[in-house]
């Protein structure tokens, strides 16, 4: 049957279960758009291509499905790069479809031509330039397969205009098999048996989980493991929600702004079971002092994550969920009962750390940003999907909002992309129309993709933005306060727009709180408004995020309140 490239693309999108595409049209993709509107796939028209990628990313993180975006060639394509790099660092499955100039013009510096495959090679899991319509179906199928399997990631497919216009005979493609791409899901059981032995001998165990557990849908076996062996659990920023944030074994987040007890526990443990993590420098602090007394088990689907930053005792390559399930089976077979007396002193010690140095701030006459997040947690009952921007707003959210389930916390961890939160909230709201979605923002980062308010209003997506407005680029200012003699070089932002009026200009609702006693009322009103809302919380200007591990220090050396 004769089909154009654009028609074949629509067939594949439907086959892959795509219900939403985030994008922005242009000359090179006009034929694809012409077909897209004839399908029942919903298209979200963003105001900037970066917003399209972050929205697809927020959709993917909250739903676990592959996020899809569609943009034109040249500037349309280059505008996606930050979004692609964001998804790549956090292993988020995306398929980014870019238009390209017609094949016969490639290499001629044609209008809106850019070598996007070359540009994105280092920040995609894989990418393709399709040179003939015959290859389109297989290539796009492969792109989806690669994006969602193994350690997920963004895959870019560059489609020249003539490839989408040309008609060819089309036969649906059966299953994709690739000779050089076969991720390892099943762990080596001999390695896992060694883990059982280490668990039996351990007196001070800690489980350390990351985003890999969420990706692999491994929160359930992780929780079961923790309870079975009575090991306290910490996670990375990306791992928040992989273990219930209200569980007695929960230590809080680890790392530069981790809790005192999480950092002290990892510092003092004799067995660290690391699952789906990559030992990022924001987590480990000074690498040679990290978990110095511990034997380290490292479970991850990506072999390059293992022994990249830290030597480990037992490496296990495998999918986090499958591996944890196998480990639980082995523990069951082994009949291992955790001798509670042997581990009790450790749990007492952890409890002591928890009680001596809990997360704290002092609420005075001015609104404290932490108070806003605490109130937000309280009023949403921990049931909202929370996205964040990057910086202090992100860290306070990680500290004061407690996530009991995966997929509820959407944040740019690895790349730390300011401007991520609002478009990501739009994507999450698309995936979960009936859930409250809140972007906890700073006044600096919200301005990086504020244009997406128009998208939210136009598409009737009732996202809420809570700006912790301190008129500073707060995290950099914090570093300047602590390590640069309070020289606030270029971090003051005195001339922000009036966010209430700005919200109204976009056709959204604007609310403001200037005193602590207004916070709850504003949140209540904002959360119950069935439209997009910006809430401007004018907070203490020079509040810092604590605890803080100075760059290059051991994670046990924290600055506390």
């Amino acid at each position, binding site marked *: 049957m004769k089909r154009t490239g654009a028609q074949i693309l629509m067939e594949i999108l439907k086959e892959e279960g795509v219900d939403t595409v985030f994008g922005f049209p242009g000359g090179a993709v006009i034929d694809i758009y012409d077909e897209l509107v004839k399908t029942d796939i919903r298209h979200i028209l963003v105001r900037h291509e970066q917003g399209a990628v972050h929205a697809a990313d927020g959709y993917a993180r909250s739903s676990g499905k592959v996020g899809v975006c569609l943009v034109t060639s040249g500037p349309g394509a280059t505008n996606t790069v930050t979004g692609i790099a964001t998804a790549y660092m956090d292993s988020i499955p995306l398929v980014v479809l870019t238009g390209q100039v017609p094949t016969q013009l490639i290499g001629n510096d044609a209008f809106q031509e850019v070598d996007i495959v070359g540009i994105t*090679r*280092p920040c995609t899991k894989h990418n393709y330039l399709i040179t003939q319509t015959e290859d389109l179906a297989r290539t796009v199928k492969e792109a989806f397969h690669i994006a969602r399997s193994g350690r997920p990631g963004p895959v870019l497919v560059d489609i020249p205009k003539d490839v989408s216009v040309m008609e060819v005979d089309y036969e649906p493609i059966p299953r994709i098999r690739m000779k*050089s791409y076969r991720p390892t899901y099943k762990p080596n059981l001999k390695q896992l048996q060694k883990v059982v032995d280490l668990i039996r001998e351990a007196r001070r165990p800690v489980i350390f989980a990351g985003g890999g557990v969420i990706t692999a849908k491994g929160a359930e076996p992780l929780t079961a493991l923790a309870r079975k062996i009575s090991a306290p659990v910490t996670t990375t920023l990306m791992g928040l929600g992989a273990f219930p944030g209200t569980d007695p074994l929960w230590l809080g987040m680890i790392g530069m702004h981790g809790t005192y007890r999480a950092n002290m526990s990892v510092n003092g443990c004799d067995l660290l079971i690391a699952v789906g993590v990559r030992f990022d420098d924001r987590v480990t602090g000074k690498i040679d002092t990290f978990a110095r007394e511990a034997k380290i088990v490292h479970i991850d689907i990506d072999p390059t994550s293992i*022994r990249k930053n830290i030597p480990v005792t037992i490496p296990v390559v495998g999918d986090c969920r499958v591996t944890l399930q196998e480990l639980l089976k082995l523990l069951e077979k082994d009949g291992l009962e955790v001798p509670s007396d042997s581990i009790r002193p450790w749990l007492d010690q952890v409890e002591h750390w928890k009680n001596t140095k809990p997360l704290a701030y002092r609420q005075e006459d001015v609104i404290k940003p932490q108070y806003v997040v605490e109130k937000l947690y309280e009023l949403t009952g921990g049931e909202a999907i929370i996205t964040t921007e990057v910086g202090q707003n992100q860290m306070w959210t990680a500290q004061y909002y407690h996530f009991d389930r995966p997929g509820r916390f959407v944040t740019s961890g690895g790349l730390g992309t300011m401007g991520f939160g609002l478009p990501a909230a739009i994507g999450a709201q698309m995936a979960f129309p009936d859930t409250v979605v809140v972007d906890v923002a700073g006044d600096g980062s919200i301005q990086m993709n504020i244009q997406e308010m128009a998208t939210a209003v136009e598409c009737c997506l009732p996202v809420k933005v809570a700006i912790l407005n301190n008129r500073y680029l707060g995290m950099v200012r914090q570093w300047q306060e602590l390590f640069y003699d309070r020289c606030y070089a270029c971090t003051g932002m005195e001339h922000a727009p009036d966010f209430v009026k700005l919200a109204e200009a976009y056709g959204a609702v604007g609310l403001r709180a200037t005193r602590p006693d207004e916070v709850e009322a504003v949140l209540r009103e904002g959360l119950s408004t069935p439209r997009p809302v910006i809430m401007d919380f004018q907070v203490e200007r020079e509040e810092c995020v604590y605890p803080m591990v100075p760059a290059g220090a051991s994670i046990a050396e924290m600055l506390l309140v």
Partner: protein
Amino acid sequence: MNSEKHILTMLVDNEPGVLSRVVGLFSGRGYNIESLCVAETTDPEVSRITMVTKGNAPLIEQIEKQLRKLVNVIKVRDLSGDKSVKREMALVCVRAKPENRAEILRIVDIFRCKVVDVGPEYYIVEVTGDEGKLSALLKLLKPMGIKKIARTGTIALFRESA
């Protein structure tokens, strides 16, 4: 830990952009490339890349794993050590003054090389061998004056006898 030379050989999809992925991985992650050789195998869909790199054991392990992670890389092996045959070829353009010609031809003979081009003032010598042989030859030819040199970089295969 000691930084050692390693010869990594890999089979890759013979597609545009694959070399760029491999080389980009090295430059992006700050790995070192001492030499690089690429050509098609008997299967036109598969190419073999041989590279010489330098690093301590954990780094080489990481490089191998990163290479395997590339979707277009089918297989990677470390061919360092004596279980493989290694060869490199060079074309050396050496100044051949009348008084040196006999000496050059003697050296060429000893090293089992070939003179492949003769000009009024220069010979081009073709030499094949392992790295040690090439550097020994170059050391002897250097005093005569080497005008130009082109080297292929190392290629290697596992010995079937090993």
